[in-house]
C-alpha cells in the first residue's frame, strides 16, 4: 500500500499567501496541461492606491502634487485626492482576499505589485496579463477634470517606469483622462511607444460622449500607431439610473454593463467603425450576456430608424462582430445553451479574449473557457491567448513553470 503524505492546516492560523489561496487553481492548471497553452489575461488588476505615495511624486502640476501630499497627511494611508464609491465587493468579508491581502509578505525587490501579481499568475496558469488599476476605475467621475489628468499622467508614468519596464509578462492599456480630450490625445502621444504599452483604456463610467469631435484626432492617432482602444466597465451608485438601488448586487450587475452599453451604442450609431476601420476596440468586464441583447435590440431598431445612423453600411451586430470583448464575469448559471448561442452570435472564436479580473471578487479562471464542451481545441487556444496576442500584437512571453514543464516532458519523451 502506498504511504499517504498527510498534512494538517488550521485556516484561522495560516498566514495569507496567494499561492495557498490558489492551490486548487494550480492543481487545475497542471491537470489541464496549461503548460501547452499560451494564456493571456486581458483584464487583471492591482491596487494602485497602495503605491500612491510613489505615484504622487510623478504628478507634474506642483500645486496638485502638494495637495496629494497634504491630503495624505490628513487621512494616513488613504489617497484622498482620489474620489471614491460606496461598494461591497468583498461581500461583507466573505471574499477573504480583500481583507487579508495586506498581510501577504513580499521581498523588498522587485516591486511588491510585480511579486504578488506573478504569484497569482503562476498559480492560475497565466503567462501574460494586461494590468489595470482598481480605484482609478471610478476616476472618470472625479469632479475635477484637472485631477483626473494629473493622476492619469502620474500613474501612467509610474506604471511604465516601475512595473512595465521591469517585467515583460505585465502589459497595460494605459489610462486615458477622457474628460479632457486634449490631455487624452497628449497621453497617447507621450506614452504610446513605451515598453509594455499595448493600447489605451477609457473607464466607461463617465459622462463624456465618445462621438464628440474633440476625440477624433485621438482615434486617428491610435489607428496610425496601430494601438487599440478599450472601454473598461465600472459602476456609479450616484448615477440616477441606479440611485434608488439599495443593494450592491443591483448597482454592480447593472452598472458594470450599462455604461459600456451606452458607449458601445454611441460608438456604432455614430459610425465610428466606418471612420476608423483599422482601430481595434475592446469592451472590458461587462460579461457576455449583454452582447446578444445589444445585437438584437439595435438591429431591430436600426431597420426602422436607419435615417438616424446614415454612416452605417451594415447592421449594428455586424460591427459588434468586428469588436473584441473580454469574457469575465462569464454568466454561467443554468444557461449553457444561451452561452453557446452567445459565443456563436459574437463570433467568439476570433473576437473573445479570456480575462480573469483577478484579484477582484468575481474573477474567472481559465477553466471557464477550457471546460466549455462546445469549444474545440483551436477555439479554446484562440480565446485563452491567441486572440489577445493578435489584438495586442505581441509575442508570447511564457511563465517559467510552463517552460520548465515542457522541457521536462520533452526530456521524459526522449
Amino acid at each position, binding site marked *: *500500500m502506498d504511504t*499517504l*503524505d*498527510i*498534512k*494538517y*492546516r*488550521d*485556516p*484561522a492560523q495560516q498566514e495569507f499567501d496567494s499561492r495557498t*489561496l490558489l*492551490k*486548487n*487553481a494550480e*492543481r*487545475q492548471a497542471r491537470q489541464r496541461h496549461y503548460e501547452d497553452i499560451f494564456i493571456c489575461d486581458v483584464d487583471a488588476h492591482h491596487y494602485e492606491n497602495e503605491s500612491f505615495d510613489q505615484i504622487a511624486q510623478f504628478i507634474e502640476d506642483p500645486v496638485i502634487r502638494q495637495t496629494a501630499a497634504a491630503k495624505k497627511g490628513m487621512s494616513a494611508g488613504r489617497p484622498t485626492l482620489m474620489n471614491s464609491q460606496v461598494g461591497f465587493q468583498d*461581500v461583507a*468579508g*466573505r*471574499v*477573504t*482576499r480583500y481583507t487579508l491581502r495586506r498581510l501577504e509578505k513580499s521581498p523588498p525587490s522587485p516591486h511588491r505589485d510585480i511579486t504578488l501579481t506573478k504569484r497569482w499568475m503562476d498559480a492560475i496558469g497565466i503567462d501574460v496579463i494586461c494590468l489595470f488599476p482598481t480605484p482609478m476605475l471610478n476616476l472618470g467621475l472625479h469632479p475635477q477634470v484637472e485631477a483626473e489628468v494629473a493622476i492619469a499622467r502620474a500613474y501612467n508614468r509610474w506604471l511604465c517606469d516601475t512595473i512595465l519596464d521591469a517585467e515583460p509578462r505585465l502589459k497595460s492599456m494605459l489610462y486615458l483622462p477622457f474628460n479632457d480630450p486634449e490631455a487624452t490625445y497628449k497621453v497617447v502621444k507621450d506614452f504610446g511607444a513605451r515598453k509594455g504599452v499595448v493600447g489605451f483604456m477609457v473607464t466607461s463610467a463617465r459622462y463624456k460622449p465618445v462621438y464628440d469631435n474633440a476625440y477624433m484626432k485621438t482615434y486617428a492617432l491610435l489607428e496610425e500607431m496601430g494601438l487599440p482602444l478599450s472601454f473598461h466597465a465600472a459602476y456609479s451608485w450616484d448615477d440616477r439610473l441606479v440611485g434608488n438601488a439599495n443593494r450592491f448586487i443591483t448597482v454592480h450587475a447593472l452598472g458594470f454593463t450599462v455604461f459600456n452599453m451606452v458607449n458601445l451604442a454611441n460608438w456604432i450609431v455614430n459610425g465610428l467603425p466606418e471612420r476608423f476601420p483599422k482601430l481595434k476596440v475592446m469592451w472590458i468586464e461587462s460579461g457576455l450576456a449583454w452582447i446578444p441583447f445589444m445585437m438584437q435590440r439595435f438591429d431591430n431598431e436600426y431597420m426602422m430608424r436607419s435615417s438616424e445612423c446614415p454612416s452605417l453600411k451594415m447592421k449594428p451586430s455586424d460591427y459588434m462582430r468586428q469588436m473584441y470583448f473580454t469574457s469575465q464575469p462569464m454568466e454561467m448559471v443554468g444557461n449553457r445553451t444561451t452561452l453557446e448561442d452567445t459565443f456563436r452570435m459574437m463570433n467568439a472564436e476570433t473576437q473573445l479574449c479570456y480575462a480573469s479580473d483577478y484579484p477582484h*471578487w*468575481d*474573477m*474567472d*479562471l481559465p*477553466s*471557464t473557457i477550457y471546460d466549455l464542451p462546445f469549444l474545440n481545441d483551436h477555439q479554446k487556444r484562440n480565446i485563452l491567448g491567441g486572440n489577445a496576442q493578435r489584438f495586442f500584437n505581441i509575442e508570447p512571453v511564457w511563465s517559467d513553470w510552463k517552460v520548465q514543464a515542457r522541457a521536462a516532458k520533452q526530456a521524459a519523451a526522449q
Partner: protein
Amino acid sequence: MVDVFVCKAGELKDGEVRIVTANDADVGVYRHGGRYLAYRNVCPHQGGPACEGVMLPKVEDVIAPDRTHQGQRFDESEMHIVCPWHGYEYKLETGECATDRRIRLQRIAVIEREGGVFIAL
C-alpha cells in the same frame, strides 16, 4: 478506502475547522453542534478552497406581518461555509449550496473511534 487521522477526540472545538491533505485530497473537517462534518475542500463553482473561508450564519430579510421590510438578521440555526474565492455559500450541516440544492460540497465520511477522529478517503 483508507482512514486518515484528523485529530484526537475533543481537540477541535465547536466552530473550528481543520484542513487535512492526504496526497492530492484536501478535506475540511468541522466540529459543529457537537459532531464532526467533513467536505472535500473543492467548491463546485470554480474549484475554490470552500473550507478555507469564513463561516457565517444565513442572512434573512425581516418582513413584518404587513409585509414591510424591517431590516435583516442572522439565522444562527443555519451556519454557512463560504468559499473565499467568490462567496458561494454552503449549509454547514448538509453541504448543500444555500441558493441551489442541486449544487453541493462532496461529503466525506467521518469515523470516531479509539479516542480519535478519522476521515475515510
